[in-house]
């Protein structure tokens, strides 16, 4: 399951970020493997919007497809 499979309001945990550059960029933004995130929106065929506390970032489709996630509670 990757980020693009999320729907608005889903809470989940980042499982793995494949791409190294994306992983480092995301670390700076406060999103790392294991962090708890909420999906705050999804453009059809476009970016995914992530929310962590009050911070919102938008991630492009191609990148979002490379970030695998697991739903909260599914360990």
């Amino acid at each position, binding site marked *: 399951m990757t980020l693009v499979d999320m729907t608005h309001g889903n809470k989940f945990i980042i499982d793995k970020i494949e791409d190294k550059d994306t992983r480092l960029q995301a670390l700076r933004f406060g999103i*790392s493997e294991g962090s708890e995130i909420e999906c705050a929106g999804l*453009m059809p065929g*476009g970016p995914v*919007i992530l929310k962590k506390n009050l911070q919102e970032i*938008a991630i492009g489709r191609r990148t979002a497809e490379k970030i695998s996630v697991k739903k909260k509670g599914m360990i």
Partner: protein
Amino acid sequence: MSHCGQTEIDTELQADKKIVLAGNPNVGKSIFFNYLTGIYVSVSNYPGTTLDISSGKMGDAAVYDTPGVYGVGSINDEERVARDIIMSADIIINVVDASHLERDLFLTQQLIDLDKKIIVALNMMDEVEKNNISIDLEALEKELGVPVIPTTAAKNRGLDKLKHSIDQATKGNSIFTNNQELAEEVKNVESETGNKADALMILEEDENIRSQYSSLKTVPALREEIYTARRQRVDQITDQVLSYDQNTSQLARKIGAYMLKPVTAIPMLLVLLYIIYQFIGVFVAQTVVGVTEELIFVENYEPFVRNIIANTIGLENFFGQLLAGEYGILTMAVTYIFGLLLPLVAGFYFLLSILEDSGYLPRIAVLMDRLLQKIGLNGRAIIPMLLGFGCVTMATITTRLLGTKRERIISIFLLGLAIPCSAQLGVIAGLIAQLDVFYILVYVLTIFAVYVLAGTFLNKVLPGESSDLLIDLPPIRLPDLKNVFNKTYQQTAAFVKEAGPIFVLGAALITVMQKTGLLALITRGAEPITVNWLGLPAETATAFVMGIIRRDFGAAGLTSIALTPAQITISLITLTLFVPCIAAMMIMIKERNFKESVYIWFGSWITAFITGGLVNLLIF
């Protein structure tokens, strides 16, 4: 040189101390800079405004503003510029958005790890209160090990205290205090560089700093380890100092969310475009310009000047014509700049400032991402594109915020080709608003089609892959009117300063060309193109000649020629696609190179005339 709205200040100040403002994008650094030095720098609510370093003096110290970055490194130009200034700082004022601590403290921790003297300005405390977050300031100070001053810069709170606390800046608690392994690695490299900051940057795999030490043995690449340790440390700090009161949902957040739901976002964007059109195209371009251009300048100012010239040096000689003739420096040039273009440009920058400061721009970037991906760009490119409607010159500079060289080439070409700047757009809006919807549609769709085709073409032929979107969404804020007016004034004044001399020169050139018969020669020589191919009156050649100097100048030149609706549409299409203005060309050469710029210039010529002719053949 000064280009639209950028304040450029001497970066080599003589001073005892070097104070550097550093922080994430859009946290209010420029307001601090303004307060400390008394120099105004434009302030906005979207990433990527400060691209050049601004500097000023505060007592004996030099103060530097830097582009907003999420970390010190070399991911893009902004980071490289910021890194060099940060590395050389004596004291760093780290401006932090208190409502985004998890994000912002990453940079703070990195600055601390770089062994710099730091003071933290914990800004936007009003947002924190509004969002019912509480921050344990004492704990934050203790964890970081540096002074933390709460501020709300936009409302002038805490600035005075910060200014008087700068000398208390200290070195804080680095991640190495609790990580023996990494501390050893830093020590190893430091023994060779003699400098802790450089040692850390080398371990963080910074190519530029690495290349300064050619004799250095191989060092381990530890960026990911260090970043992860830093992120863990920051999360640990925020867990300790932050507490949320969850049960509030506020209007701004709701509006922000609606701006991102396609069902509501697209109608909102369309309404916005309609408001922009009504404001610029109808209100400013017709009502306001009707007063300023017609009543003030053409009916009163021009006869007055002509009278004076006629009574002194006379109108019927070369100098009389140069000053007050058909293309007179004191008549036509002045009327165009102040009567016609000034209100349009001011109106546009007023709207753009509101858009910038409200935080809507990054959301438009998210909405447009999917479409822009098709022409090899990502949503971020919407920022230079929208800025391009203000001033293509300024927009060309902001293409630096795009991830790859490929994206920069595509967007600079599209900016030069198919984005009319505010001055030109204003004139176009004025001309087009008189026409039927049919002609307006033909114009808009043609320009859009050229834009998409050119973008698709470049996306196909340029090698490589464009970067993907990763953008921070600032909270929706109500723009501060004072800031909006201030910025409008700055940008408009910069426009007059830049465009004024070029207009005067252009007007003089046209008079000389007219007197020497060159204009008639060009008009006749261009007839196969203007009359036969484009179906326009021969004298529109003058407007095209003027358009080479500045595109808006050319569009303004059209206002004085009698044209049918079809002719207006075709000449506007051709002029919009026509060459970028001289200032834009100079910036393109500076930002890219001479060869690419010349390609763009001739590419525009060819595209403009082919498209104009095709529309003439196929539609009219």
